[in-house]
């Protein structure tokens, strides 16, 4: 324990001295060397110190810009939290997370139950992952193991194009293209339900899953593949029994990132899921997700009412959910990269 603290102390002393060096320059740099005192080169020296100041000022400038990312992330959290707190003063947490009824404008008693929206979000994202995981992993495996490199060069930009389609266009196609088809297949009156939303969310999550899974499949050391092939395994066996297990952490991380995208997606679900407030009991029902609810109600709500604050509370819940999902993906990816090194 003592040794540890001593080590830490000497470390921080080193850090302080290096900081001082950085700010003022090393002692030997500042002290004029014999040759310099001999010749009148003061202006040169002055220039040098100014240059050093300029350098550290420039570095500080870029550093500030780098740190902005942390400030923004904390800022978003702080803004959401401070605006959501008044809501939690009025609404008990038990009602907020346990009540199924969201009816803030009820004339008798306003109810703020988030449960059916949380379940709706979960239904849509689960459906999306059920579709996106097998297809995304399949495409990734195809690109990394089967496709000719020329094919890969063509397909990768196409996947990027898919990622570039605006969500509002995807939602629109959900209404005009998939809606009628779903209504016909499942004999529902209209096709605006959780199935439609799930399908569209799957399309939106696919590019993330494909590109990150493919990267991690490509990162599997070739020695693994070669060993498997040398032992007589077919390319398919190598893929399924060696490469995918070896890349599993990266692949799971890609699922998590896809999940994060699906949870936070607003416009597609807003347009394609029908937005009924009732508690959903299955995929064929119209659902209203958390994101869609914010989008629907924030435009009409009077400012600084409990309802207004409650919408920010939903935003806070969303922020925390996606943050956790992304953090898990990050931890998995980091672990994976460290092992590769």
């Amino acid at each position, binding site marked *: 324990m003592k040794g540890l603290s001593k080590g830490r102390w000497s470390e921080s002393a080193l850090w302080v001295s290096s900081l001082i060096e950085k700010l003022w320059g090393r002692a030997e740099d500042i002290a004029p060397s014999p040759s310099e005192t001999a010749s009148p080169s003061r202006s040169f020296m002055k220039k040098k110190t100014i240059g050093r100041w300029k*350098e550290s000022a420039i*570095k500080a400038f*870029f550093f500030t*810009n*780098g*740190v*902005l*990312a*942390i400030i*923004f*992330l904390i800022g*978003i959290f702080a*803004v959401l939290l401070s*605006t959501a707190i008044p809501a939690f003063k009025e609404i008990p947490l038990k009602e907020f997370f346990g009540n199924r009824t969201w009816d803030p404008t009820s004339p008798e008693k306003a109810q703020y139950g988030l449960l059916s929206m949380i379940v709706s979000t979960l239904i849509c994202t689960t459906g999306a992952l059920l579709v996106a995981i097998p*297809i995304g*992993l*399949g*495409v990734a495996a*195809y*690109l990394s*193991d*089967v*496709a000719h490199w020329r094919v890969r060069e063509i397909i990768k*930009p*196409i996947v*990027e*194009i*898919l990622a*570039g*389609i*605006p*969500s*509002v*266009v*995807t*939602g629109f196609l959900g209404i005009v*293209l998939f809606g009628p088809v779903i209504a016909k297949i499942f004999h529902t009156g209209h096709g605006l339900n959780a199935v439609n939303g799930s399908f569209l969310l799957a399309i939106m999550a696919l590019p993330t899953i*494909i590109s990150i899974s493919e990267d991690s499949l490509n990162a599997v050391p070739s020695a693994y593949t070669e060993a498997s092939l040398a032992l007589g395994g*077919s390319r*398919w066996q190598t*893929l399924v029994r060696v490469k995918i297990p070896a890349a599993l952490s990266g692949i799971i991380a890609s699922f998590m990132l896809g999940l994060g*995208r699906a949870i*936070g*997606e*607003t*416009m597609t679900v807003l*347009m394609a899921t029908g937005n009924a407030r009732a508690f959903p009991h299955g995929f064929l029902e119209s659902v209203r997700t958390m*994101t869609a609810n*914010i989008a629907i109600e*924030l*435009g009409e709500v009077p400012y600084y009412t409990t309802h207004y604050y409650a919408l*920010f509370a939903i*935003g806070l819940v*969303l*922020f925390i959910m*996606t*943050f956790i999902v*992304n*953090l898990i993906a*990050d931890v998995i990816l980091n672990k994976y990269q460290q092992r590769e090194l």
Partner: protein
Amino acid sequence: MKKKKVIQFIGFMLLRFCLYTVLAILLLFLYDIGKKGGGAISWEFLSQPPRRGMTQGGIFPAIMGTFLVTIVTAVLAIPLGMFAAIYLNEYAKQTRLTRIIRLSIRNLSGVPSIVYGLFGVILFVNILKFGTSILSAGLTLGLLTLPWTITASEEALKTIPNSYREGSLALGATKWQSIRTNVLPYAIPGMLTGTVLGLARAAGETAPILFTGAAFYLPYLPKSLSDQFMALPYHLYILATQHHAIQQVRPLAYGTALVLIVLVLGLNMTAIVIRYRMRRKRRW
């Protein structure tokens, strides 16, 4: 032995089937919008404001609105993204702080777009009192784009070989001098293409501008940055779901979707093609 081959054949067929499914969906999207939207496109549609409760006329104000808001986005996101990327790639050492910065950037890119919208409502509309305006919406979209521009700029900086920096440093140049003269000139084209990709995505976003400045209908063009504006994605949303005569305006909705997708994918493709060309041309 033969069984193994058969399984492999079936397996690879399945994988190929996955790829074809994705391609088919993309083609179906583009075909449907291209075919039904193409009929709505005319010079009048592109150059006139909507008329008669948006059942006739064009989408000119929406195009202009999206254009203006994207400029505000670019003004915020491009410099900030580049500076942050320069710090991360050129100056930052592997410290805990650097790891936290990188973690924040990755998490920022995962924050739902509607949450950015909520943040914009509080910070830009209420606290900074920009009101619901082009400025508020552009800044909100700028924040949303920032993680993408940082990542893309850093990718561009990473492609510059270290020998460029070392050569300059060895000749006595300071750190900033070598970055300015030996790194940035070669990295800036790549940084710009990356940021264009980010801007294209921002131009197609709807959720962040819903409450920070996009207007349902405006008969005139915005005169200053503090005016509300019509935007293509929001206009499409209204035509598709909020309009009183949805079936009647479907062709207009298709037309708007086509313009939006041509705009966004056009920007995307230009950036991708430029990047591809640069990669092929440059042999260090």
